[in-house]
């Protein structure tokens, strides 16, 4: 760990040392400053002396100018990334000081180096770069990964904080500073009331980037988080609007402002905010619609999300609406539909790319913020102004939060507690948005622009670094309710669903119109119109949140099943070449890809296995051999599953929903293959293990008793029997019509278990239709045996089933119970 860190440090250092040499010109390019002063170092580095290769075209030329600006940008990103890498490698530091603070400090360092090399800070965060290239992806990511239900159920509160709270902060701060100025606390400052208000509006907003960076690490409860986070997101729009309004007022001059202008300002606020949201909404729908028909260009469908998201940002900016709100709502609107419409691979691409972009630009922003401070030209110190601003920012944040919460709590079903309010107030971190706006100020109109910038920087540093560092201890000290770490269990999901429906039902019955009522109405509307319009019909049915958990459980089952199976050898059939060929021939194109994976990874298995002459089912011996390569085997099986099962599941669900409408032939075919494979598997087991070909399970057992085998043989026989039983149970899942591939088998198993006729007294368990073909030609005894036998094994998690110490006992029991048609309760429940 330490060595790793040191190596990285060295790497970073070397980059740093070389940076100033070529860094400076590019910084200009990035900051789009016009003067093209090329530092002397460049000539030595980038200009090859053409004289040396005087004759004709040089063999090698360094064309620095040619690549200068993109090179610098990329290098810059790289350095920021490296900085993050080094910082994150030291967990003991990041656990105390949040990453954002460290990045700012790193920025100081970098800025110092640049300043030292260059003499003047040429490298700073310009509003253009910030607002056009760094901010959008962060906001898009937050919108896209927004927990929608949580957000909208707290939307009222969030809006109150974001709109009223921000206005309150801006107004009180501006007025108080103005008052203090009048009182003479700041000495000679030429700032009018309107300019104070302008300053107040730019510094009023809580910054989403800073808030996420800090709150991500403290894991407070979700309501608190969404309140702070949602506020920080939405109030950016508010600040920008306020800023623009006051900016216009300042331009207009105090004496020209009349009631109409003020009214216009207020009105424009609503236009900008709602217009921006509307633009985002429209673009969100556009993306959703587009992803409905990108089936043939799956490889680039992920790109649409980014392109259209950015376009919505730019469109809103063009219409001088709130671009931030636009891109937030774009992300919020489209997330559900694009996740359903796109290929799972594309979805994960989008997710990861979002995170890469957002995290990257967050890193860059913080480093930028650090660098910007190392600049002699912006620093204007006015102790009174700066300290008073800092004081007022914090004090009014607290007052505003408590005041608004007090009002909100009167209407909230679950009031916001005192401690939560403290954290909310304390979490009012200012960030790059404030800085970007401060830089945007027009120096010709506002004389004290530099003072405002330096004050903003101080406030940002104070909130991000000081409050960021103290946030964690404070949260621990106040014992703030944390977010539950555990993943939601299936029963909780089900219960959630029950709650939703129950509450709306009670509201319906009691004649109240509340939150649940509206949510229900919206859900119905969405189901009826939005889903039909925006979602592919094939995926519409899978929107149940319960299913995600359910499938996760299934995956877990499948994993343990295969691991166990691999260990015990019951998955012999995977290695069975016949079966594989069978699969491969019949599965058709859409599975060929999967199957090739399968084949490749199986080749190794097959090889190792054929070397082993002992029947793999023999528990003892096999386990011995497994010990050697258990690690690889485990890895293989997991890998196999991860690669194949997941995709298989998707296919399965797809088919499943289709099958509901009509029985499609494709599926029948697949099922047949499946059954045939199962029969193969059965047969191979029977012949391999017992030497005889047991027709029924009962016979099998009869064999067992009289045979005076050596203990060892019996041992192996038993385990073979166990396996046999298991695979029989498994094969019985062929009952269920929708099995279509090896991967699907897992889902299948569980479902088949539930469908198991033995558990449903009202359905005749031996209905002829339900008898799978491979059992149909065996004598009726076995048919009888099959379902009951499944009883004990079926519903256990496969791993558990395998460990079952008494396979014969349970078989006997179920066999005895067979004649009674009603399933004994014991068996029924034991299924669980």
């Amino acid at each position, binding site marked *: 760990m330490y060595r790793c860190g040191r190596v990285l440090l060295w790497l970073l250092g070397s980059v740093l040392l070389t940076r100033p040499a070529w860094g400076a010109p590019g910084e200009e390019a990035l900051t789009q400053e016009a003067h093209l002063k090329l530092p002397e170092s460049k000539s030595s580095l980038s200009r090859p002396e053409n004289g040396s290769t005087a004759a004709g075209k040089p063999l090698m030329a360094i064309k620095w100018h040619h690549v200068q600006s993109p090179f610098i940008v990329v290098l810059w990103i790289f350095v920021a990334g490296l900085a993050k890498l080094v910082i994150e490698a030291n967990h003991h530091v990041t656990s105390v000081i949040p990453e954002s603070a460290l990045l700012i400090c790193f920025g100081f360092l970098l800025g110092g180096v640049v300043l030292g090399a260059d003499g003047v800070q040429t490298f700073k965060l310009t509003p253009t770069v910030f607002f056009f290239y760094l901010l959008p992806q962060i906001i898009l990511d937050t919108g896209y990964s927004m927990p929608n239900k949580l957000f909208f159920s707290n939307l009222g509160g969030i809006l109150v904080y974001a709109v009223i709270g921000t206005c309150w902060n801006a107004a009180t701060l501006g007025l108080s500073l103005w008052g203090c100025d009048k009182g003479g606390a700041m000495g000679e400052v030429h700032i009018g009331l309107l300019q104070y208000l302008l300053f107040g509006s730019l510094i009023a907003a809580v910054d989403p980037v800073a808030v996420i960076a800090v709150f991500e690490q403290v894991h407070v409860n979700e309501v608190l988080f969404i309140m702070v986070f949602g506020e920080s997101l939405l109030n950016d729009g508010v600040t920008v609007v306020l800023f623009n309004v006051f900016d216009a007022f300042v331009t207009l001059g105090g004496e020209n402002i009349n009631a109409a202008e003020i009214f216009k300002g207020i009105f424009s606020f609503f236009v900008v905010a709602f217009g921006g949201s509307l633009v985002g909404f429209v673009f969100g729908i556009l993306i959703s619609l587009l992803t409905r028909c990108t089936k043939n260009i799956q490889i680039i469908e992920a790109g649409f999300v980014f392109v259209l998201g950015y376009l919505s940002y730019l469109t809103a900016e063009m219409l001088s609406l709130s671009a931030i709100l636009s891109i937030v709502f774009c992300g919020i609107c489209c997330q559900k539909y694009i996740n359903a419409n796109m290929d799972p691979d594309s979805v994960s691409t989008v997710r990861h790319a979002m995170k890469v972009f957002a995290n990257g630009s967050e890193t860059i922003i913080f480093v930028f913020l650090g660098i910007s401070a190392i600049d002699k030209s912006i620093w204007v110190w006015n102790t009174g102004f700066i300290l008073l601003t800092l004081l007022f920012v914090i004090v009014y944040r607290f007052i505003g939060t408590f005041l608004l919460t007090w009002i909100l709590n009167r209407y909230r079903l679950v009031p916001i507690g005192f401690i939560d309010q403290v954290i909310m107030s304390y979490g009012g971190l200012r960030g790059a948005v404030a800085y970007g706006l401060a830089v945007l100020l027009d120096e010709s109109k506002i004389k004290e622009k530099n003072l405002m910038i330096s004050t903003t920087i101080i406030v940002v540093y104070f909130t991000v670094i000081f409050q960021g560092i103290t946030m964690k201890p404070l949260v621990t000290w106040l014992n703030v309710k944390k977010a539950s770490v555990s993943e939601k269990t*299936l029963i909780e999901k089900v219960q959630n*669903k029950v709650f939703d429906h129950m*509450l709306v*039902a009670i509201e319906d019955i*009691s004649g109240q119109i509340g939150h*649940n009522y509206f949510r229900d109405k919206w859900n119905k509307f969405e189901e009826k119109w939005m889903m039909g319009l925006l979602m592919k019909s094939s995926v519409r049915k899978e929107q149940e949140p319960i299913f995600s958990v359910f499938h996760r459980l299934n995956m877990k089952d499948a994993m343990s099943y295969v691991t166990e199976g691999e260990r015990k050898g019951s998955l012999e059939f995977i290695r069975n070449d016949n079966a594989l060929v069978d699969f491969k021939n019949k599965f058709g194109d859409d599975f060929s890809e999967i199957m090739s994976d399968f084949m490749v990874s199986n080749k190794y298995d097959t090889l190792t296995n054929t070397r082993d002459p002992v029947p793999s089912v023999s528990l003892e011996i096999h386990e011995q051999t497994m010990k050697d390569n258990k690690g690889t085997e485990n890895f293989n099986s997991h890998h196999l599953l991860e690669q194949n099962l997941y995709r298989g599941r998707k296919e399965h669900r797809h088919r499943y929903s289709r099958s509901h409408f009509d029985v499609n032939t494709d599926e029948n075919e697949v099922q047949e293959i499946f059954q045939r494979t199962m029969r193969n598997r059965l047969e191979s087991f029977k012949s391999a293990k017992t030497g005889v070909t047991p027709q029924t399970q009962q016979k099998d057992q009869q064999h067992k008793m009289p045979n005076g085998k050596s203990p060892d043989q019996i041992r192996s026989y038993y385990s073979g029997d166990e396996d046999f039983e298991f695979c029989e149970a498994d094969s019985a899942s062929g009952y269920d019509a929708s099995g279509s591939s090896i991967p699907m088998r897992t889902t299948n198993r*569980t479902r088949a278990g539930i469908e198991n006729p033995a558990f449903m007294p009202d359905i005749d368990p031996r209905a002829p239709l339900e008898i799978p073909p491979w059992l149909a030609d065996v004598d009726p005894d076995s048919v009888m045996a099959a379902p009951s036998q499944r009883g004990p094994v079926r519903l256990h998690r496969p791993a558990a089933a395998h460990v*079952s110490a008494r396979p014969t006992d349970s078989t006997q029991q179920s066999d005895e119970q067979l004649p009674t048609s009603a399933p004994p309760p014991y068996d029924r429940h*034991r299924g669980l």
Partner: protein
Amino acid sequence: MVATETRSPGIRFVSCGFDTTPVAFGLRLERPRRVCVGVMGLLQSSPGEPQYIDLAEKTGFSFEQIAVLHKRFKQLSHNEETLRRDRFNEIPDLAFNPIRAQIIEAFFDRRNYRQNGQGAVDEIRFEEFVVVMSHFRPPSPHMTEEQREGVRREKLQFLFNMHDTDSDGTITLEEYRHVVEELLSRSGALGTEAAKSIADAAMLEVKSISVGDTKPDDFYEGIKFEDFLKLLNGFEIESRMSIRFLNMDATTLCK
């Protein structure tokens, strides 16, 4: 729209604009009065029959809330004294609710009226209606930890009863399956098989949580109430299972 609640009829009474003492109020209530219905009438109406005091004490609803609920009750029952199941089925908004049957049944379940009730009734009076409704009252912010726990238990008991249809104190697999099936019955193609498998998976989960690691052959008959408490431990049931009861009348808006 402020849903302030108070348990004290006296305070509520004064706030209604009467300058009589609670004692006098009690006396006056001897005279049967018809409950005023209607938005305007509500504001001036003194809560009528003495059962209102009992009800308010029993359920914690304020008089206004009870009056609103009473009006709703009358509306549902077509001005009759009792309410039958089919009246519930007539509520149009409820028609799309997948667990409608369970909810309606909960209103007729004696277990939800008092501690040791048993069996079901055919029709309910206003009192039962309000008592069942009171399970959904939001918790008061000034509760002690024990009170909160009590509310939590009581709400969970209601939920448990809803699942435990044969009232034997255990949610068996069949009962649970039934709920999940109903729950998913409206999500289109998901069919009953999927519902069953989900119920099964959930039960497996329940088993592993409540019993711990046991042998797979062990018998597990279903979810007991204690397990149920444990299972939903992470749930803030006292706030989740609450709706806001308005003092204002909104019945005209919903059919």
